[in-house]
């Protein structure tokens, strides 16, 4: 008890210091004013609403599926950056790097497991999130355009997962991408040019691996970040999450 009080006093003093105030630009978040400041005075949090409806915080309202999709994206970004330190987008070095992750790199297996698992989970979570939002009627006015952004995010998620699938350069990766890119060539007229553009050639080889690597590590993640930011910001601008009475 005494320790708690001492800690509180110490924290209180810390919050009053010039350094603390210079960083956080506010005092302790004890009044609604400073709590508002905590959200819109923060670069990362300011896309969120300052106040939310109590009902929209119930587990049944969202099952946290949107948040879980986002958290998985964060986990994938962190583990992905770590994996990039051990990976060369070249044939056959890419496959050798996989073997190194298993036999040489400390916790390399764990790192790859985590990335793979989170990737599969993110595809599931994003689909589930979409269907749940549909059944809750979350796409109805004024949320129409945020639903469209969400469909864009679903596509980016699928492309992210798909481009990552080739990178280990094993049989599983090679033939899965073969099946997928063959489907593209069925598109009338544009099919073959699109496939050529995606693979950097007529076959899945060194060029295709490099293109998938750049798409997977740079272009698609940037697209995802932009869309996620817009998606979150629109929740606030459209007046918060749809809240519905539970009468199912």
């Amino acid at each position: 008890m005494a320790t708690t009080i001492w800690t509180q006093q110490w924290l209180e003093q810390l919050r009053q210091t010039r350094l603390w105030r210079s960083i956080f630009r506010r005092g302790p978040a004890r009044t609604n004013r400073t709590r508002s400041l905590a959200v819109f005075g923060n670069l990362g949090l300011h896309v969120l609403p300052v106040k939310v409806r109590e009902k929209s915080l119930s587990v049944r309202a969202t099952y946290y599926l949107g948040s879980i999709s986002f958290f998985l994206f964060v986990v994938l970004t962190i583990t992905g950056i770590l994996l990039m330190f051990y990976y060369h987008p070249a044939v056959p070095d890419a496959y050798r790097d996989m073997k190194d992750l298993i036999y040489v790199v400390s916790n390399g297996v764990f790192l790859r497991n985590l990335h793979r698992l989170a990737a599969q989970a993110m595809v599931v979570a994003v689909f589930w999130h979409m269907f749940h939002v549909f059944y809750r009627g979350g796409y109805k006015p004024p949320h129409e355009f945020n639903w469209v952004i969400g469909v864009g995010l679903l596509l980016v998620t699928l492309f992210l997962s798909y481009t990552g699938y080739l990178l280990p350069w094993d049989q599983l990766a090679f033939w899965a991408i073969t099946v997928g890119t063959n489907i593209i060539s069925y598109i009338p007229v544009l099919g073959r040019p699109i496939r050529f553009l995606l693979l950097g050639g007529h076959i899945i080889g060194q060029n295709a691996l490099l293109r998938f690597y750049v798409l997977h590590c740079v272009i698609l993640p940037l697209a995802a970040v932009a869309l996620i930011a817009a998606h979150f910001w629109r929740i606030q601008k459209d007046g918060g999450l749809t809240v519905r009475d539970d009468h199912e």
Partner: protein
Amino acid sequence: MSEKNSYEVGFSSDALRQPRRIVFITRKTSAKVKEEIGPQLMSFPHVILRESIAFQVLTIVLVALALFWDAPLEQLANPLLTPNPAKAPWYFLGLQELLHYFPPVLAGVLIPTLVVLALVVIPYFDVNIEGEPLWAHRSRRRLQIYAGAFAVLFVLLAIYNAWTVLVPTALVGALGLIPYFNPTGNSRFQKFLGSRPLPWWVMTWFIAVALTLTAVGTFFRGPGWSWVWPWS
């Protein structure tokens, strides 16, 4: 009542001088027209705290799973050695299953494009915004359309022998008829079915088909895309 202070009095009976504002609010037409907003909470700390806990739980579950489950890694890629069957990632196996039945332009291009377009236009084409149950009005006429649509689908799917699409379609179709033939059903499940609007039925049909196709493509397809049992 002096002319000078009229703004203090409120409404004047002269409509030209003081326009009336009349608002018609239709029930449940828009999320903007809420009956009431209800109690609100500050995002900081209520949302931040909950989200932090959710993130921590998720991380713990992921780490626990990653310790016991290993990511697959097969032999080095070999363009000369085609595995049989060669499978796409699991979320595209529904498409691959469709390709087994339909011509490639239909299954590989037209259907996925239409699905994405349909998803995009959902909020703009939801004519039944009130969420009125499927059989609420003109139920005989609706039954004719319902049966007609199902018959066309049935014939198309039967021509192509696409029975992994046909079975979930028939099941959801039959489920939709329960509230029509037994509108006074009293069990919770029957009441639930009876209150579902058309968009609900379309989406449920889509999910049923997509889940069936993905599950079949993942677990029940072997060499030459033939049917195999996952335990054999």
